[in-house]
């Protein structure tokens, strides 16, 4: 049945002791003593039993902050914890998350737990954001502050078939199915039963929420089954369900497949999306940790302010990675080596140039970040496109850079603050794909047709560059570079830093080209196979025969031909300048187009394409014409007829 353990902290400490200390090697300490068998024993049966664990597992994944100073009386175990554990946030103030987001989550929790209508069903909250931005920490702190029990699902590790289970009859089911079933079972129990009353606990505290971070694999394969479970959950249940899903930069996003828009709407799922931790917040946290470590007075080296800034920049908003890097970089050996290298460089830099050139500075710092063990930054396509299209610039003073001669003054631009090549690389897309996205969206941000001419010419060049398939891999990056820089430079309305705000926000769209091209190919193939009896080359067939067949009283052999002619031979003439439906690009959409999505669905295009039901008068119905045609059809016979 549902087993609940009251003291979370206790369990957590126990768990932490089993783990080898990740930084042992650097800290020059022996690994902690092998825990006694007794400490492992009580937990083992719980693991082996393949039932949903209601243990509120405290994760080895804390998040965003630290206590102001380490207390002197901390146990040895406490000291050996990695810093991410030791300085886990203790209160809302410790959280490095935006205050607004915390409030949002708090409000949601309050409305759905304390102001719940009696008849109201369960409600679902979805927390998303990049890894290490404090999603889990926020929820746990809020839950503690509001006095909620958190019941968390963890995927059962393995399903050992013990004798009891064999007797319990579900041995013939596959593990994956069983996992989904167990999940459903867990939801039911977590919803129905409160945790056990332990000694010393008051019974007033029976509000709770169910937390799900591990999602059974089955649901990735078959999101429909998750939706079914959620539907019934929302109908029956009394307590809120919280999903925490990390954003995925490349490939298919979990959030999209598990929670498509229809489901979100149907079940009124509230989605709160966290942003990467802001550098200022991150600095605050890092400073506090550094200070705390310093007052613990170990032999560790305390990093100075600039190196903290470097850490901050290198981790791209992931606080967990930042704290890990901080701990790593605080080890003595690391910095003593590092110091020698960088001090010489630093001295040179200061000596040579008083005016710190931003680009130069960036380059040298980038190297250092890598040395410390920073994280590869990635950005969502939406932001990448935005950076290219809105192209931020920095004003240059007249004295600083040499002026262009008068006849070239039209090409004068302020310094770009972005590196287009970096952006394309960070968007995890191939160059030609990125160009397509750029092509779909650039026109909206131009105001002068002459600028568009130049931009479109660059895009055309970029396409030609990567047309040779054998050289495509190499050329794609050049092609993207030509396209992005071309588009940026062409836009004279964004040439200078002070001109930035003009156009305001415009929505971005996904490229239509894939759909259009796919339809073109499909229609060509369909035309060839449906009208092969006319023995015409494809071009004549498509540009002469089909359009006229649409107007003629020539009976077709079958319904497919009639439908096709009405679809392809006719164009929506009465409609003026309708634009094809555009699919908006959300700020977290993965870039790869879903080609299977529009399979054979002519409704994608809002045109006058009609089905066979409303044929114009000139088109005789096929049934009557069939007989006529059979006798007239002399010229071409099918092979088996003679």
């Amino acid at each position: 049945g549902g087993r609940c353990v009251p003291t979370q902290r206790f369990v957590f400490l126990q768990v932490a002791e089993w783990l080898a200390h990740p930084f042992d090697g650097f800290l020059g300490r022996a690994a902690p003593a092998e825990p006694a068998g007794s400490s492992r024993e009580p937990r083992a049966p719980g693991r082996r039993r393949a039932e949903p664990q209601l243990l509120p597992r405290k994760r080895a994944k804390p998040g965003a902050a630290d206590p102001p100073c380490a207390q002197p009386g901390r146990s040895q175990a406490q000291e050996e914890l990695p810093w991410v554990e030791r300085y886990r946030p203790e209160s809302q103030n410790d959280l490095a998350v935006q205050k607004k987001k915390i409030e949002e989550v708090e409000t949601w929790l309050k409305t759905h737990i304390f102001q719940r209508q009696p008849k109201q069903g369960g409600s679902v909250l979805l927390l998303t954001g990049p890894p290490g931005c404090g999603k889990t920490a926020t929820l746990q702190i809020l839950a503690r502050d509001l006095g909620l029990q958190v019941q968390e699902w963890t995927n059962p590790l393995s399903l050992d078939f013990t004798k009891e289970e064999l007797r319990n009859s579900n041995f013939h089911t596959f593990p994956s199915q069983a996992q989904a079933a167990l999940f459903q079972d867990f939801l039911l129990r977590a919803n129905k039963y409160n945790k056990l009353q332990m000694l010393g606990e008051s019974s007033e505290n029976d509000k709770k929420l169910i937390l799900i971070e591990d999602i059974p694999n089955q649901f990735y394969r078959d999101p429909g089954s998750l939706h079914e479970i959620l539907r019934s959950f929302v109908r029956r249940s009394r307590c809120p369900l919280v999903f925490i899903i990390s954003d995925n930069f490349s490939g298919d996003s979990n959030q999209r497949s598990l929670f498509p828009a229809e489901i979100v709407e149907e079940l009124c799922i509230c989605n709160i999306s966290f942003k990467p931790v802001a550098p200022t917040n991150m600095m605050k946290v890092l400073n506090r940790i550094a200070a705390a470590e310093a007052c613990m007075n170990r032999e560790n080296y305390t990093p100075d302010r600039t190196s903290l800034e470097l850490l901050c920049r290198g981790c791209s908003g992931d606080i967990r990675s930042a704290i890990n890097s901080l701990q790593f970089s605080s080890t003595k050996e690391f910095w003593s080596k590092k110091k020698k290298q960088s001090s010489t460089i630093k001295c040179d830099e200061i000596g040579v140039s008083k005016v710190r050139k931003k680009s130069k500075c960036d380059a040298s710092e980038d190297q250092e970040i890598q040395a410390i063990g920073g994280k590869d930054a990635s950005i969502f396509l939406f932001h990448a496109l935005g950076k290219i299209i809105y192209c931020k610039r920095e004003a240059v003073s007249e004295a600083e850079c040499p002026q262009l001669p008068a006849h070239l003054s039209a090409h004068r631009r302020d310094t770009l603050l972005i590196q287009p090549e970096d952006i394309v690389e960070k968007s995890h897309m191939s160059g030609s794909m990125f160009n397509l996205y750029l092509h779909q969206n650039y026109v909206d941000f131009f105001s002068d047709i002459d600028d568009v001419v130049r931009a479109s010419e660059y895009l055309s060049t970029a396409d030609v560059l990567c047309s040779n398939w054998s050289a495509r891999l190499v050329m794609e990056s050049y092609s993207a570079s030509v396209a992005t820089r071309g588009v940026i430079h062409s836009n004279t309305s964004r040439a200078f830093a002070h001109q930035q705000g003009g156009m305001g926000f415009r929505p971005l769209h996904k490229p239509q080209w894939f759909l259009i091209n796919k339809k073109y190919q499909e229609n060509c193939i369909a035309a060839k196979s449906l009208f092969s009896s006319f023995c015409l080359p494809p071009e004549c067939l498509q540009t002469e025969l089909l359009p006229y067949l649409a107007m003629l009283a020539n009976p077709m052999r079958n319904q497919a031909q009639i439908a096709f002619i009405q679809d392809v031979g006719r164009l929506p003439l009465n409609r003026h300048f309708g634009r094809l439906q555009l699919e908006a690009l959300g700020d977290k959409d993965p870039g790869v187009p879903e080609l299977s999505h529009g399979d054979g669905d002519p409704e994608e295009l809002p045109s006058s394409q009609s089905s066979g039901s409303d044929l114009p008068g000139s088109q005789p119905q096929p049934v009557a014409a069939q007989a006529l045609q059979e006798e007239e059809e002399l010229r071409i016979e099918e092979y088996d007829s003679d």
Partner: protein
Amino acid sequence: MSLWADKHRPGALGRLDFHREQAARLRNLVQCGDFPHLLVYGPSGAGKKTRIMCLLKELYGAGVEKLRIEHQSITAPSKKKIEISTIASNYHLEVNPSDAGNNDRVVIQELLKTVAQSQQLETSTQRDFKVVLLTEVDKLTKDAQHALRRTMEKYMATCRLILCCNSMSKIIGPIQSRCLAVRVPAPSTEDICHVLSSVCKKEGLTLPQELAQRIAEKSGRNLRKALLMCESCRVQQYPFTADQDIPEMDWEIYLRETANAIVGQQTPQRLLEVRGRLYELLTHCIPPEIIMKGLLTELLNNCDGQLKGEVAQMAAFYEHRLQLGSKAIYHLEAFVAKFMAIYKKFMEDGLDDIMF
């Protein structure tokens, strides 16, 4: 109840309506029972295919009209299966190798080999060679054309090739020199009028001379198109009147509207609308080259003589890019944008001249 263009197609060299001298020469050519490889070229709707079929009938008799459609699958050396459909009688085989796209070389080699390696069965009553008719030869890749050159020499004993294309310019020299070139020019307007009248007579309709003339002019000397136009006129209104509307193809009207939209306003927003219209045309199976060409024709109608040269040059430039590149829309759009800029500048300059 087939199309007029098919129904009234002449079945013998003697019954051809135009280019009679050429027909007589072709007849002389096959009189002796043998002929060299042929390269028949000429614009679309000039009667190339009709002549070839007449020639084959002359050679083999009515048996060539018993056609069947076969779907063959050929395995490329890379183990890739290529599906291609052929039209064949007992004596000849018609195939469009460019259907196979980049694998056209394999089609040429494998298909011709299987055809040429099998001897005709009854040489007493029939010719001792087969005929392979390759259409759209100008769309073949260079690879395939070189493969064709070798094949032509190798199997000369058992098979004759008839190559059919619109333009010789894309065919490599060695092939041109191995074939007897037969040029089938577009019929003159009078020829078309004559054909239209005779077809209408056979259909039991009376066609006013003026209407025939108008159709002929509008068809651009493309006989197939003229017949289709005439037939659609029949659907639209009968009895015919001399001044009735000749139905145009939807995509042509659409293209003209697109050109008007371009001329009407030159802004980025209008460019986006035009992009939507280009997409619409593409989804209706109009190839990008045709769109480019049609757009140029319509735009040239709309602009001043001074601009025409520049616009045509831009069109040629982007048409070339279109052939080189992989995604047509970039180049079509770049052309439209370029035209907009040229046209806008021209109009503004003109306005300045008037004002000062």
